[in-house]
């Protein structure tokens, strides 16, 4: 998994690439937890480069939402497509999260 972040105003844009699975999900959870503990509460997660996600990865996203809810924060997902989209459909995640077609639209949604 490749995880990169940048700041757009007060929003952290997290770009993940590769695989979010049982092996990489713990690292994702740790990095997200550190950012939220550091006081960040508004996130866009860009899935454009993500090829694969399993239930372990979905749990990482759920944990992120849970931590943000506890702090009154928000997250919006962007560019969910292909294989990742079909796993979201299978697990009902497409109704749980706010999702947009691009990072720009996701940033606008959080504004």
């Amino acid at each position, binding site marked *: 998994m490749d995880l990169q972040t940048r700041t757009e105003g007060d929003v952290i844009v997290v770009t993940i690439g590769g695989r979010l699975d049982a092996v990489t999900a713990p690292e994702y959870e740790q990095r997200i937890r550190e950012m939220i503990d550091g006081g960040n509460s508004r996130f866009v997660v860009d899935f454009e480069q993500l090829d*694969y996600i*399993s*239930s*372990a990865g979905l*749990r990482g996203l759920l944990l992120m939402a849970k931590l943000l809810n506890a702090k009154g924060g928000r997250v919006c997902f962007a560019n969910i497509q292909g*294989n990742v989209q079909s796993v979201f459909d299978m*697990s009902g995640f497409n109704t749980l999260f706010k999702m947009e077609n691009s990072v720009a639209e996701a940033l606008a949604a959080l504004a």
Partner: protein
Amino acid sequence: MIKIERLSKKFDDLVVLADITTEIKKGEVVSIIGPSGTGKSTLLRCLNLLEKPSGGAIYIDGVDILDKKTNVAKIRQKMNMVFQSFNLFSHLSVLENLTLGPIKLKKMDVLAAQAKAMELLRLVGLAEKAHSYPDELSGGQKQRVAIARCLAMEPEIILFDEPTSALDPTMVSEVLSVIRRLAREGLTMAIVTHEMDFARDVSNRVLYMDDGLIYEQGPPEQIFENPQKEKTKAFINRIRSYGCRVSSPDFDLYAMNAEIEAFCDKQILPKSSRDHLLLLVEELLQLYTPYLSTTTLDLTIAYSEKSERLEVVCESEGKELNPLVGDGLDDDLGLMIIRNLAESITHQWRDGKNRLEFLLK
């Protein structure tokens, strides 16, 4: 007509035929199928005594052909063989190839032998090639001549040893149609073949051989539509499989993924099938992980080239275990994914063995 009892054949330490017992009745057409190297051709060659069996007995019309007192030449006249490489005499014309045996061995009159040969060449559609030489014929024509030559000896039984395997695909059908015609006329035949559709159409009975044994036998409907045993099923459905054993919760998921991807590449599976397979395996392993410190999981991925279906089988020994119905799950995300990926899921616990099967959509 032919009775084979406990036949075995070894080449030095190599056991090619382990223990063959079967019977071929008069008028029966028996196809012998199975993977390469399982002794099919050796069985035919033992029947014709081109190979000397290491043990057991072969009776032709009640005569023990392995008995030293038996007149082997006389037995061979009852039973003739068609080889995959035709074995025609290249220096003789087609007609001479057909008349040589009847004149020399059966002491037939030359004119009568020629008349019979022409009749047989008409039967296989090659009368106009009577004066050609084998090198002037196509592979399919050569094999039809070989069949006619075999018939010229008026055998009661014909053994076909992969009669089409040396032919171009375009020539296979002309040879098979001649054999089909002979089958309709009630000739007793044993045919070693890799042409499954042909074996299904032409046979009264099919022998599936594996590891030097008749592993399963039955009417073609049984063997081809509803094989009873595992190896027959795998052969008939052209199943390719990948298996691995997981015996620790600290298994290497990525090493396993790499092997599964290599398996998928080898079977030329589409990317979507590969992605679904990798996801199903990961989700299953996550469900099995709590049990892997005490249980060993044997995971098999099977792909049927015939039906183009993918199946995943999880086997574990011990007490009844179906991680899909475990109550120790934190959530049902993995289960939802698995149920979405699988068309059917079955679990069986029998004789201390758990078997969980998934047929992918």
